[in-house]
């Protein structure tokens, strides 16, 4: 309490200081520049860590890049990994934009997979229905089940003000148990915890299906789910940023009291948005079992629904940005299998995440290093 602030008594003061002032406007190119620099800095920091543990950062990066994007084959695998992430990332972005914290994309993903499976295994479409009819029915089933899993927290939030973070999170576990019930009991194939393999008509077409016409496509696993995912992300972007409904969502998200004042029905939008979010995540589940696994089983997701939360934030809640971010994450997941120890890509993933979130400050403020006045 007795410190006298005369500069003479302070032994040393750093001659430069940070000046931080709020920005009035942040242009688009700045957002892009800041993000790119943040990713580059993250890679530099990762390189330092790699060097410290005795690795060669250049070779490690080259290897990661090679393992994820190096050839048509691995890039195709990267896209397969990115597909469910685009769905869950978009699902989270849509809900988060209205400040509805849907932590349940994982559960909605599982429900979507269950919904799509019911279409096949409960005989909703006959086994010799055409591929188009079968897949269309699976899309509807997946989206409906996912949306139902969003409707429950939505109606609870809108009518009874139940916190959606808790309900969406808890519904995850219910959906896991529900899927387990079906794969352990109802549809168990010969005692294994999985259903039978779906008929061919229920498989999403793959690039390798075209190998006869285009030999270059041989062995490429990318399936039509990727196109569906990109389409969904584009539609979600259009809804959020170009439609009247999206304007309402953004207004409610930013200031619910102002939205009420503007005559917007918040309760109805709460239910609808959580249903939309759940439906998109549900489509992700459908795409994963119809495009990759071709049956329902327990391990259909290593946490895509939770990674979707991170992806939505990194994409600044913009569904269009969800696509490249998901591809980057897909690549890192893939590279994780290649690199030993596999913690390294995850470490880099963490540093990138950290840097991107921290870089936000440069968009909100002018930060300058200035000479400290005497």
């Amino acid at each position: 309490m007795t410190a006298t602030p005369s500069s003479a008594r302070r032994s040393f003061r750093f001659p430069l200081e940070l000046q931080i002032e709020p920005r009035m406007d942040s242009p688009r190119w700045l957002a892009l520049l800041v993000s790119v620099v943040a990713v580059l800095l993250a890679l530099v920091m990762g390189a330092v860590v790699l060097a410290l543990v005795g690795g060669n950062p250049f070779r490690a990066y080259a290897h990661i890049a090679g393992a994820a994007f190096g050839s048509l084959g691995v890039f195709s695998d990267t896209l397969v990994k990115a597909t469910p992430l685009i769905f869950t990332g978009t699902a989270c972005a849509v809900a988060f934009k209205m400040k509805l914290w849907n932590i349940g994309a994982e559960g909605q993903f599982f429900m979507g997979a269950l919904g799509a499976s019911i279409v096949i295994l409960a005989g909703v479409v006959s086994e010799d229905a055409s591929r188009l009819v079968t897949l269309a029915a699976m899309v509807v089933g997946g989206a409906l089940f996912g949306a139902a899993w969003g409707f429950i927290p939505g109606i609870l939030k809108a009518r009874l003000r139940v916190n959606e973070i808790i309900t969406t999170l808890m519904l995850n576990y219910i959906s896991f148990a529900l899927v387990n019930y079906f794969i352990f009991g109802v549809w168990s194939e010969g005692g294994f915890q999985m259903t039978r393999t779906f008929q061919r008509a229920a498989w999403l077409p793959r690039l390798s299906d075209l190998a006869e016409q285009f030999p270059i496509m041989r062995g490429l696993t990318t399936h039509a789910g990727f196109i569906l995912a990109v389409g969904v992300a584009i539609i979600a972007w259009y809804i959020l940023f170009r439609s009247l409904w999206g304007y309402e969502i953004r207004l409610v998200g930013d200031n619910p009291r102002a939205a009420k004042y503007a005559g917007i029905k918040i309760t109805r939008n709460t239910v609808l948005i959580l249903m939309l979010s759940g439906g998109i995540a549900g489509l992700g589940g459908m795409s994963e079992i119809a495009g990759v696994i071709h049956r329902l089983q327990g391990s259909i997701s290593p946490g895509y629904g939770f990674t979707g939360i991170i992806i939505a934030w990194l994409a600044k809640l913009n569904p269009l940005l969800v696509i490249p971010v998901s591809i980057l994450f897909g690549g890192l997941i893939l590279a994780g299998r290649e690199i030993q120890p596999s913690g390294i890509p995850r470490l880099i993933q963490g540093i990138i995440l950290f840097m991107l979130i921290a870089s936000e400050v440069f968009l909100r403020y002018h930060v300058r290093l200035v000479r400290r006045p005497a």
Partner: protein
Amino acid sequence: MDNLVEMRGITKRFPGVIANEDVDFELRHGEIHALLGENGAGKSTLMTVLAGLYRPEAGTILVRGNPVGFNSPRDAIDLGIGMIHQHFTLIESQTVTENILLGLDEPRFLMRLSHYDKQMAKIGEQYGLQVTPDVKIWQLSVGEQQRVEILKMLYRGVEVLIMDEPTSVLAPQEIEELFKTLRSMVEEGKSIVFISHKLNEVMTIADRITVLRQGRVTAAGIDPASTSKAELANLMVGRKVLFELEKTQREPGKVVLELQGVSADNDKRLPAMRGIDLKVRSGEIVGVAGVAGNGQSELGEVITGLRTCTGGRILVNGKEVTNRHARTSIDLGVAHIPEDRTHVGTAPNLSITDNVIMKKYREPPIARGTSLDRGAAQEMAQGLKSEYTILAPSVETPARNLSGGNLQRVILARELSSEPSLLIAMQPTRGLDVGAIEGVQQLLLEQREQGAAILLISEELEEIFTLSDRIVVIYEGEIVADGVEPDAEKVGLLMTGGSRSSSKERAA
């Protein structure tokens, strides 16, 4: 030489703005020195420099004759200079004592709250600051919270107390309380800097007045007895302010708004409006005078559909809007300037464009089918930006970056451009500076000319008197007088329940 604080040649720049240019300021021991000026004149900037928050580009500060350099507010507090900001810095879920002790070196480990509670009560008593030390902040009124802020400074041994617009959040009785406290603090030997843009208050409380305009001093340390309100206003604004607005005679038209025995509860679920009857006609401004918290906020909210009524009927142009969704009244042409600009009137992170289309986005040209025509929205925003002189780099600037006056212009632009048939104007000039107030009042009169029915809810009696065609007084949720003369004493008495139910002159 009894100058406690001297600031010499202070210059502080922000990007593109000079907030203070070569400003001198002196504070004597044991005085209340008012710092008067419009919003953006640089009053708060100058004082945040003194409180150690900003570092000036040029100039020196002397405290008790010694030059000082502050690196943080803590340095300033160590020398006995503390500032209470307009927005309080209290933690709602903690008690008064806990808030005061926050950030101090004592107590070290054990809280021993009851020991400190006693200490707080003692200091409070000494300065006539009534606060209960062991209640939580959220349980206190704004006035009481302000007392906690003062107590916080006193506990830190502050000799110079800077108060930034302390009355802007207070009800009239609370202002009286505050003035009493300030006087008793001066008697105890403290010195006070009182930042304000309200002439009346400054004339009442200040020993000396320094006026700032556009970052420069236009009058230093003048004696309130030797000046007048008109002269001070001139020093503040730099031109003669017309306190008399041009208002034409006009016969009111048909009834636009009708309330029949409307009752409603407040946020604490206590009755706030008790059977209010009220009519507002086209081309008429009805001013509602009342001390804050007597039901006038709720009155505005029930009409605009933001609050449910517990009884009665509300008709707009003969159509029922009682307990309907806010959209019903919007569609009937009800415009609303809300009391709370930042929490109700605007969405802070959305752009000016997104904020001005809030009530028009459902109609063409902004709505095109289910899509939003961004081009049309921006075009409309551009037009309103220049028409209402909203100062901002572009229409894509987020609302949070706008100053109070500009934010109010965004709201006015949105609400008035819809050519409303009924306008609910709640505290339309609160916190605005003299020049801006005049502009807003002019706009309200223009709406009256165009035949809008206007319900004006304001705590500024002067504003009600200048603008209203009819004045009603609200007290404890009831209209206690309808059609009273613009006489400050008479209205003031009615507002405080002085002559209740004496003359209910109802204009039919």
